[in-house]
């Protein structure tokens, strides 16, 4: 009896396995294999919006989604490395613009997308800097569709109201505000930061560099145009960064940025420099902008900029379904798709036709307005400006610095890492005409 039951099971499993296999083969003709790292709650729903639009426009193409979890695509990149080297690329995959995208170009893994770019008139519809960040050797290699702003200063509205503080506009003002909080509310950490995942230390440094040096110095630093050992701009920024250390949340090495957001909104910490994605987290946790927390673009002086991270999709060389890839990339440039996607994703659309009023919340309306009116600077984060190899070393250097702030040691570490990671060489694309 038992044997017969087992046999029947075996038969059922075999049939199931066979039907899956045959279904895969039958569907092969009309497929779009997508790899992306949008797996978290809101991200997945945002991605589903794109799928919805894609299916409406291309009912004959079946989407085969392969989400690989891991912020900034670290894990996805590990998976892709194998697929691309084995010459079995997906039909499209997610990357970031700039240096990160350049790696795939250098490896000859992705093909130009100039056809889509000019068909959709993206030279006019996208900001010039995005044009630059997707162009290598005179050709476009990626279709971006959304932008995150990295330079926000979130702060506890309750603490700022109670102490009658105004949000700082420069790092010096930030230090002054932190000093006030520390002396008048000793139990509160003036600057909230969580460096267990390291990269938030870079967010904090970036606003310091923007404040002490301005956007030109910022771009030069991250593309290796400054000599870290000798240039006064880098030294000044690091010295200012050191002045922040006494005001940081004491146990930052044990926390991630998301551990820190709620205590800030609960008035246990003062302020925090992080990207717009923190707004989504705070809103989901039930904290209200305007009463519990608020956020300002930071720094405002010498010049307010939009520090940008851009998600991008690409066309792999020798992808199996080229028409599907083209249809996918074209769909991403549709302002309606971008609007619906970005409202859920918590980023902003980069197509100029998407109005600021699209976004239900104040923070993203402001981000969208800033995006259209202020200078856009590519963020260093996720290897958008500096190559990913340097970013990895850079976050190690900065988190070490926060524990033992030795400016001279850090400067020589930066210089060594920049040489090792060939930052100057790989930053050439940014200055190419």
């Amino acid at each position, binding site marked *: 009896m038992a044997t017969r039951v087992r046999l029947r099971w075996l038969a059922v499993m075999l049939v199931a396995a066979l039907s899956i296999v045959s279904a895969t083969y039958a569907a092969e003709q009309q497929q779009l294999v997508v790899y992306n790292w949008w797996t978290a709650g809101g991200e997945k729903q945002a991605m589903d919006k794109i799928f919805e639009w894609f299916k409406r426009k291309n009912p004959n193409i079946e989407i085969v989604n392969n989400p690989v979890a891991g912020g900034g695509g670290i894990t996805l*990149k*590990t998976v892709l*490395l194998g697929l691309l080297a084995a010459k079995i690329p997906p039909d499209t995959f997610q990357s970031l613009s700039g240096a990160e995208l350049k790696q795939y170009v250098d490896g000859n893994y992705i093909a130009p997308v100039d056809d889509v770019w000019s068909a959709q008139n993206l030279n006019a519809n996208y900001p010039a800097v995005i044009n630059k960040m997707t162009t290598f050797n005179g050709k476009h290699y990626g279709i971006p569709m959304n932008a995150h702003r990295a330079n926000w200063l979130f702060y506890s509205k309750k603490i700022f109201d109670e102490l009658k503080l105004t949000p700082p506009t420069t790092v010096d003002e930030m230090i002054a505000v932190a000093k006030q909080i520390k002396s008048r509310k000793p139990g509160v950490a003036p600057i909230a930061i969580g*460096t267990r995942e390291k990269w938030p230390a870079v967010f904090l440094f970036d606003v310091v560099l923007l404040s002490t040096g301005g956007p030109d110095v910022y771009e030069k630093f991250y593309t290796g145009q400054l000599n870290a050992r000798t240039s006064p701009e880098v030294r000044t920024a690091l010295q200012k960064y050191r002045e922040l250390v006494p005001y940081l949340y004491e146990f*930052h*090495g044990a926390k991630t940025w998301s551990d820190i957001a709620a205590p800030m909104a609960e008035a246990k910490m003062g302020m925090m420099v992080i990207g717009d994605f923190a707004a989504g987290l705070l809103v989901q946790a039930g904290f209200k902008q305007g009463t519990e927390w608020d956020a300002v673009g930071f720094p405002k002086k010498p010049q307010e900029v939009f520090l940008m991270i851009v998600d991008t999709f690409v066309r792999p060389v020798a992808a199996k379904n080229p028409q599907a890839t083209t249809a996918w990339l074209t769909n991403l440039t549709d302002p309606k798709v971008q609007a619906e996607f970005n409202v859920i994703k918590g980023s902003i659309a980069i197509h100029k036709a998407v109005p600021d009023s699209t976004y239900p919340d104040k923070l993203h309306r402001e981000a969208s307005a800033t995006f259209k009116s202020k200078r856009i600077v590519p963020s260093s984060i996720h290897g958008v400006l500096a190559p990913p190899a340097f970013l990895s*070393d850079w976050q190690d250097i900065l988190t070490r610095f926060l524990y033992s702030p030795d400016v001279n040691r850090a400067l020589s570490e930066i210089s060594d890492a920049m040489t090792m*990671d060939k930052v100057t060489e790989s930053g050439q694309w940014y200055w190419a005409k």
Partner: protein
Amino acid sequence: MPYTRAHVLLFLGPLLLIVLLMYGMMAWTVAISMSDWVGLAPVWKFNGLQNFRTLVVGALQERFFTNLRNNVIWLVVFIVPTASLGLLLAYGLDLSGKAERLFRPLFLYPLTLSFVVTGTVWAWMYDPEAGVINNGLRMVGLGRWAQPWIADPGLATLCLIGAAIWQYTGFAMTLYLAAIRDIPRETMEAARVDGASDVQVFRYVVVPNVGHATMIVTALLILITLKVFDLVWVMTFGGPGISTEVLPFFMFVATFRQQFVGIGAAISVIILIMAVAVVVPYSWWSMRRLQV
């Protein structure tokens, strides 16, 4: 039933496949470690021992030796307590009679968790403010002993090792328990009849008779420390700074995040050499033992 050629193929085939895969991969890694491969696409430019030189005497020297030092700390601080605790627990269980059935699974249970789960749970426990360890200390009036734990560059590696000891003590215990059960009962009973206490039995009968278990436990724990990665990744991500980085972590970061594939392969080869240095003497020793 006589063995036919088909049988030979059937059983040797998979073995051959595994051997080829494993040693093929190893050979491949060695080849990459002597290449100039940087970036996503393979670069097959032979550059001899340049990658090793970069690690040991070149630009990555400080990082490499920090990693190596941490690996050595792991070797020393992880293995001795895990093995000793395992042996003590095993002897305790052996003495406890029927209660053993209750306790053995309890101690073995942590081993069934993945390092990712262990890491997450222990990171919570080590939390300087909300963590159970500091709060426990404060509750019993030992608040001054509260530490930043994983947020302290000097303590963080020890904290990681603490989590690993917790996870692997049950494993050492099981192996020791089997070894203790192997000791002829008459020997133990004779000692007791002669008036030896439990402690004396432990010292003069158990310890001298579980040498082979110690060899196995130590060799396996050494291999575990050489490839420790998940705990570091989950709990500290190598930080603060690079203070808790170990070689396997560095290998992953160098290869997949920085695309220094040649350097990453060189680190793998160094880990392999370290592992071989442990496994070969061990195998030699156990083979000799079997022949006697």
